[in-house]
């Protein structure tokens, strides 16, 4: 039960990050503090990724925050059964949260367009992915005291 509540609370924070709203590290620390020591690897990974994302949103430039929002919207949009109107205008997602992204299966250019930027390549996605990987690995070592999974090394 605690695991489910924790996941719902994490999703609330994901929603705020997608909307570009501020999330404090303290708030995120409190959430991760509730993570059980015997939690499954997916739980741990989710918590570390959330920590890394909040850190990036607090420390980096406006451009990187925008890329983070686009990346989260992009990844979340690839969940659930595909359900998107055609033709689809990504700009309607401006100011919307998690619930609007699900099932849209956005392309990266569409995800960027949803945050007001036009791009045709994946450079920004690769950059934010690499930054999150680094942060995630650091958080894993600091908080969990063990080596991160291979995907983060």
């Amino acid at each position: 039960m605690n695991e489910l509540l924790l996941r719902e609370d994490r999703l609330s924070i994901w929603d705020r990050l997608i909307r570009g709203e501020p999330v404090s590290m303290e708030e995120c620390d409190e959430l991760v503090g509730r993570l059980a020591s015997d939690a499954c690897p997916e739980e741990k990974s989710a918590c570390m990724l959330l920590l890394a994302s909040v850190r990036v949103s607090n420390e980096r430039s406006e451009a990187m925050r925008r890329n983070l929002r686009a990346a989260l919207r992009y990844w979340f949009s690839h969940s659930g059964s595909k359900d998107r109107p055609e033709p689809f205008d990504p700009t309607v997602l401006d100011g919307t949260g998690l619930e609007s992204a699900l099932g849209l299966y956005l392309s990266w250019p569409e995800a960027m367009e949803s945050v007001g930027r036009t791009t045709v390549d994946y450079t920004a996605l690769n950059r934010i992915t690499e930054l999150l990987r680094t942060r995630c690995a650091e958080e894993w070592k600091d908080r969990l005291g063990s080596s991160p999974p291979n995907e983060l090394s």
Partner: protein
Amino acid sequence: MKGDDNRAEFFSEILAHELAPIEHDSHPDLDLMLAALEGTIQPEVRSKLSAHIATCRSCRVRWKRLSQRVAEATETQKGRTRVPSFDAYVSERVPRRATLGDRLRELFEVRTVSLAAASTAALAVMLAVAIPLLRGPAVRTSEQIEALSSRIEILQNRLGPSDGLSQFGNDVLSSGDGVRPISAAALNAFDWDAVVSYTVRPGDNWERIAEDQLKSADLWPLVWFLNRESGPPDAPPPAGEEIVLPTRRSAR
């Protein structure tokens, strides 16, 4: 590049795990969803709602349906407040060869509005616009005169001949019956094609709305004319009703 792809896929999988369905004990009610769509709930509550919708299939279906209905209703509302240009408006509503009486009957009989009151107001509007122009003291540029005169001419042609129009106008103007001539400057201070919504407040009437919102009570006949579907000119519009008002032109 391959590493980036793997990591992106890893993150995508983590986030997909976050969205695994949850058997919720309770579900958000309709009011909460509507408030979220209207943007009238606290951000924390809205984000909790988003988290619930993301993990609850039935609520996601409800949310999608509701969003679509609200979007459709918003579109309809936009359509209602999109007012055609004055010329298009006249041309659409007034049969080319109809007499003034026919036109007024057509406009108001269906709504069981007093024909006399409606005629009075319609003629007052015509005169309020036309008389200052014909007298011409307030017009500053020849362009303005030409544009406004042209509009009046179109109106007059479309409405057809009407005996007694001038007499009526004189009567209204000399009676001090609340209808005063509108100067071209006052008329031109507003864009009557670009309109904004206004919700009628208790105690409002056409003159008060023109006074409060446009800072010119003299413009009330035009405000009524713009919203004449809301009722006759001698009755205040119903409180709570959405009407439209012209926007003030920015100073050059």
